[in-house]
């Protein structure tokens, strides 16, 4: 607990305890922890003297915040107009089916978190999938599933079987 508070203290100092910078502070917490742990948000609320309900409102309003730990890898699927026209919904469906994960969720083995976003602004590459900051262009349902399968560590063949 003490260690966590230290992190919150540091981040608050970074922004000179300016409550207007609440969103950057929360972004920094998420960058450190991978998500927004409830304890951190509680200390943030008490240190800034901001109601926890307001922090919770902000955390749930913006889609980039998450309240649960994420998977090992970050998978972002673009759902912008062009990607949509070029078949993004089918890719999303294929991923959901293969890995039993809905957009916004994390696979049960915590391999990756799937996010469907509005537009990553790389329309020339449509349909686009981003895995840990690497852009994959012109993906198909098959190639997307293939890329995500390759994220699995090779020495665990049994998980592969259970998922297929």
């Amino acid at each position: 607990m003490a260690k966590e508070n230290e992190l919150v203290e540091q981040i608050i100092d970074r922004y000179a305890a300016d409550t207007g910078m609440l969103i950057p502070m929360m972004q920094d917490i998420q960058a450190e922890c991978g998500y927004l742990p409830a304890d951190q948000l509680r200390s943030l609320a008490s240190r800034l003297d901001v109601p926890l309900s307001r922090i919770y409102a902000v955390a749930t309003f913006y889609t980039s915040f998450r309240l649960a730990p994420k998977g090992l890898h970050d998978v972002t699927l673009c759902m912008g107009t062009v990607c949509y026209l070029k078949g993004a919904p089918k890719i999303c469906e294929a991923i959901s089916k293969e890995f039993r994960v809905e957009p916004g969720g994390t696979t049960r083995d915590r391999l990756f978190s799937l996010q469907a976003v509005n537009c990553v602004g790389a329309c020339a590459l449509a349909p686009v999938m981003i895995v840990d900051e690497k852009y994959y262009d012109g993906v198909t349902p098959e190639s997307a599933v293939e890329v995500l399968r390759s994220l699995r560590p090779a020495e665990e063949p049994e998980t592969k079987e259970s998922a297929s």
Partner: protein
Amino acid sequence: MIETPVRFKSTADIETFSRSLRDRTDSTTKLVRVCIGTGCAAKGSRRLYELFCEAVKQSDLDVRVEAKCVGCHGFCERGPIVVVEPGEILYQRVEEPDVAEIFRETVLGGRVVQRLLYEDPDTGKRAEKADEIPFYNVQKRIVLGGNGRYNPTKITDYITEGGYSALAKVLSSMLPEDVISEVELSELRGRGGGGFPTGRKWRSCRAAKGFPKYVICNGDEGDPGAFMDRSIMEGNPHSVIEGMLIGAYAIGSEQGYIYVRNEYPLAVEHLRMAISQAQEMGLLGRNILGSSFSFDIKINRGGGAFVCGESTALMASLEGRTGEPRAKYIHTVESGFRGKPTNLNNVETWANVPHIINKGGEWFAGIGTEKSKGTKVFSLVGKVVNTGLVEVPMGITLRQVIDEIGGGVRDGKGFKAVQTGGPSGGCIPSEHLDARVDFDELTKLGSMMGSGGMIVMDEDTCMVRVARYFTEFLQKESCGKCTPCREGLSQMLYILDRITDGEGQVGDVERLESLAKLLESTALCALGKTAANPVISTIRYFRDEYDAHILERHCPAKECRGLFRYEIDADACKGCGICLKNCPVGAISGENKVPHTIDQEKCTLCGACWEKCPFTAVLKV
């Protein structure tokens, strides 16, 4: 990065420094410029850059060669793009093995590698330079002019080519009033979508009582299918900063904010670097260039909410609150961010300002139509041959943009519509393709200029589904503050779902229209008021598609599952049996080498046969 630390103390210092940089540039130096915009970078251009650098290091010949990363060239379709100087030779779709050849042949030998040049698909003619390619020569690049030439992470590149000279001019010879008059004279209108006259906005903000005043750059480019602002922020961040500096001087502000979308990490990185370099050189901070003017900029990353592109919602987000818009009867120029006078402009608007100051408002007003001046950057995407970023003078026709620059519709398909203005815009059909790119003309057609997405749709696109897509997008992104938007969009989506599922009822179109009218007249913010545009414009131009869905239970574009059938073309079918093996429900029958048939009773319309047939003998009817 910058060899000699320089801190400018007067406006004359910039010109001196710029001249010394130009003098130092050896004209015999050969230059390889590698595009590292997101499009090219995704196709491995950073690796190409490294390979060129290695080649430069290993070459023991007595030539000066410099490899350089540059911002987006716009021709993303053909990436990665590499340009070699002298000669401005443009190579496209460059791959790792090509690097050695380019270096040996072109850089050292001065010969052109023909196979890497752009080849005109119609004439087969190869183009050596960018301006020989139709994609570029119809364009007029002002805002994007520096993209593809500057290294966005080096302030010296920007200064060498005259960057920050507009700021020096303003601080040394213009009063704030003069700056505003110049911008008014240019008739620049906001590039974020609204099209409000920029000069008038600045004037009201300057006149507003209250201190401090703020200037904000809206980089929350939320429209799906639009990436103009991203490329400017990534490719030429200093142009935005210089624009904001000039605006701040005119308005009387000391603090600026750039609000960048969360999905644009490279833009944030480049802006951060640009700001710290500008601070080091005395272009941001206290007493800029030795004057009494002080100004600094902070960057905020968005949280991933579409509504934050709306100015009042953006300000709420900057204040650390949920991004809910407020009613506009209190103008933000009087009471905006933290209740103080605030001037918010879009990235592209800011990037236009240094050009207006340098070349004069009259020059700018000489480009374009009567009510829309200058150029506009569009992201030309969708089912078009040349996808990319284009900058065109106002007044050019949509047809020119799509056919001449874009190269027409991809795969020889027929054109159906072009969608402009993002979720607040509409779909424009082929009969209006000769309409001019102009704020008012596009609005008249039921669409809008918007921030600059231009999405081309072909004959295989179902317009009801397009309307449904945008409605679903907006329904998810509605902040929920006002009832018409929150509930109205849900109801519209419900009706559109029904229609695309083949359960549309007579009167549904009228119900959609009445909900749309309600939204337009009662929603709180501009996003809500225009939310029905995609539905209204598709009803206006493609009513027959709605009717076919509702009355005939048929989707003319054959996209809505269940509203068309699969059949096998007996003439094209070779009886190979692939479809039969792939059908999950055993609906296909037929002897080997004899045309097969689909049992419509059993068929679940999964489309497996259509995807697998090697002879395209399975038809959608």
